[in-house]
């Protein structure tokens, strides 16, 4: 196996009063899309900032491409911070050139690539406009361009999809997939599991600064999901509630309205549940043996409370 693009080794970061990241270790293989998942306040941004040398860890170490940390490799790393922003009074093209220079690109090379990207994302006519004349969506695109102009081997996106409309989110997704297919590594953090599930090859789930689980998406699902059954009712539910409560068959049920996601008890046969439902006069439109959703794993791991907290806006902390 090739050298991982990124290794985080037992890093710890304490801020006045609390430990934001607690002896966290991660390994991001080369050429994958890695989802760093966790509720707000879990320490995702802090971890990312330590990877990038923005914060100095209180303990532990970070290695990029086998040696050294973020700033040493800044020419190979692209970074999209959680809170977006550009120089408002600068022209679009000048912002891009300046940020590319920060990544070690010459202005000449940067100009060529910037014009290409602006064209590709439909912003060619806006290159001489000031940033504050652009819509929020356009500004996001410009900022995204600024993170990939220097063709980084590792792209780090904090809350990658926050604040994007569906169209722009799709553009971003396509671009990220394209980068992965060209061998780049992408580390993105999000608390929206549906997106992570569709996009990520690897995931690492963290909460309260600690890692709960990591690995390939398939592995995580296999080891943490158990066997799942998805049920849709078509009207009558029969004796469903009693059957779902039978711990010999079902260890956990997540039922809401006409839909239910069940986790099978070990040794139980899904056919027994189906038989019981049908005999109790329940009408079914769907009965499917399935993998658990990432969201389910996430909720199970971090607890419903933390998962709900993830829906709330993050409180600024330093």
């Amino acid at each position, binding site marked *: 196996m090739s050298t991982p693009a990124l290794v985080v080794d037992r890093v710890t970061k304490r801020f006045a009063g609390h430990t934001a990241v607690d002896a966290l270790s991660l390994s991001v293989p080369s050429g994958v899309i890695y989802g760093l998942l966790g509720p707000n306040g879990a320490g995702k941004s802090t971890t990312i*900032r330590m990877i*990038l*040398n*923005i*914060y100095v860890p209180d303990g532990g170490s970070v290695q990029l491409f086998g040696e050294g940390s*973020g*700033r040493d490799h*800044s020419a190979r*790393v692209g*970074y999209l*911070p959680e*809170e*977006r*922003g*550009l*120089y*408002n*009074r*600068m022209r679009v093209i*000048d912002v891009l050139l*300046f*940020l590319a*220079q*920060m*990544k*070690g690109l010459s202005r000449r090379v940067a100009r060529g690539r910037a014009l290409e990207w602006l064209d590709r994302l439909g912003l060619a006519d806006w290159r001489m406009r000031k940033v504050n004349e652009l819509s929020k969506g356009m500004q996001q695109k410009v900022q995204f361009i*600024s*993170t990939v102009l220097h063709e980084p081997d590792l792209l780090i996106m904090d809350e990658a999809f926050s604040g994007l409309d569906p169209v722009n989110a799709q553009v971003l997704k396509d671009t990220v997939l394209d980068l992965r297919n060209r061998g780049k590594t992408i580390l993105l953090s999000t608390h929206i599991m549906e997106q992570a599930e569709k996009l990520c090859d690897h995931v690492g789930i963290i909460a309260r600064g600690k890692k709960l689980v990591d690995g390939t998406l398939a592995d995580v699902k296999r080891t943490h999901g158990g066997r799942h059954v998805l049920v849709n009712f078509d009207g009558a539910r029969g004796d469903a509630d009693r059957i779902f409560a039978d711990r010999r068959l079902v260890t956990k049920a997540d039922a809401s309205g006409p839909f239910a996601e069940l986790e099978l008890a070990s040794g139980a046969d899904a056919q027994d549940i189906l038989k019981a439902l049908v005999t109790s006069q329940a009408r079914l439109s769907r009965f499917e043996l399935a993998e658990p959703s990432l969201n389910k794993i996430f909720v199970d791991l971090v607890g419903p409370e933390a998962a709900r907290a993830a829906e709330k806006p993050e409180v*600024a*902390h*330093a």
Partner: protein
Amino acid sequence: MRKVLAVIRREFVERVRTRWFWIGTVLGPVLMIAIIGFQMLLAGQGGGHREIALMDRTSTAFGADLASQLQRAIPRFHVVRVAAGAGVADSLLAEVEAKRIDGYLMVSDSTLTDGAAEYRGSNVSSIGDMEQLHAALQRVLFAARLEERGIDTLLVQQAQVTLNLETHKIMGRKLTGESGTQSFMTGFGMAILLFVAILMYGVNVMSSVLEEKTTRVVEVLVSSLKPFQLMVGKVIGAGAVGIVQLSVWIVSAKLLSGAQHRAALANPAAITPSFQFPNIPTATLVIFVLYFLLGYFLYAGIYAAVGAMSSTEAEARQAQVPVQLLLMVPYLSFFALLNDPNSRIAVWLTMIPFWSPIATPVRWGASPFPVIQLVVSLSILLVTVIFVTWVASRIYRVGILMTGKRPSLRELVRWVRTA
């Protein structure tokens, strides 16, 4: 290093592109021209013709005598003697109001004995008019008293010398062409220029730091270069703008003073305005530039730290008030410096690093002092610049990534120690 250059370049180019840079750069010389023009206008008016009435309450011929002698002493005054009587004062008042005369001088017998006289007019605030009137009146009185005691008129006239005291500053052993007024103007001009420039470019650094902080661009930057490099790039970039702007101002001042000088030579009859561009010696200029740079670096570092520890523009404006007050001390003391450049206060102002950037060039401009003092002052300033930059960079490093409320003094100390 290339990244620092890029930071410098951005800071410089973006600032030079703004409307404010051009307004400021052009406004400087325009303001200078305006000041000269205004002064010339005032001087021109000050030398105009005056209609003066002399209200004579004397019981002797002294009044009539005084009128004719005043007329001779000040040719641009037209003096008419009016004998005092009932209602004369009122009618003269009406004349002044109607602007047919500028004012009237009241003399009586006591003028000769006690020197008491009174002038009422619309031009009393004209220093030139009043000084001339005062001087002429004194001379006439002086002569009249001597004559009264029987001294020969001719002898008196010979004894009366019109004094013309010219003031020239001594630099080293050389006599400079600089007059007292010019010397004052040099000091005054340098104090204003240094104060405004250090403050303005320092505040520029502050708002630039703040912009990167509030837009969070700083996170991307700090992941690519060290916070210290970023801060140094900013300070140098904004300082370069300052140097360009100051150069434009100094060069245009030089050109203007040259033009003014030539105009004065071409038309010697013209009244010289009280404001003249002084001829600044090279040593003073070098000291000026040196202290501007060091002073700028000193305060720019502080302003960068202030920007980093604030979260909004309003907060930063409030936080920088103490810094501004600190810089105001030497600015406000420039009068003391010029009055007595070798006083103990002046020496202290030259030595204290937060004040010396303004105080030293002003004091040197007023009167060069021992070079050893200059060396000590520069050394103290240089060491302070290095120390303050070090402290500021540590505050900057922590501050730019902080959000929320402004840190307390204790927290700042912790930042500096642990950063």
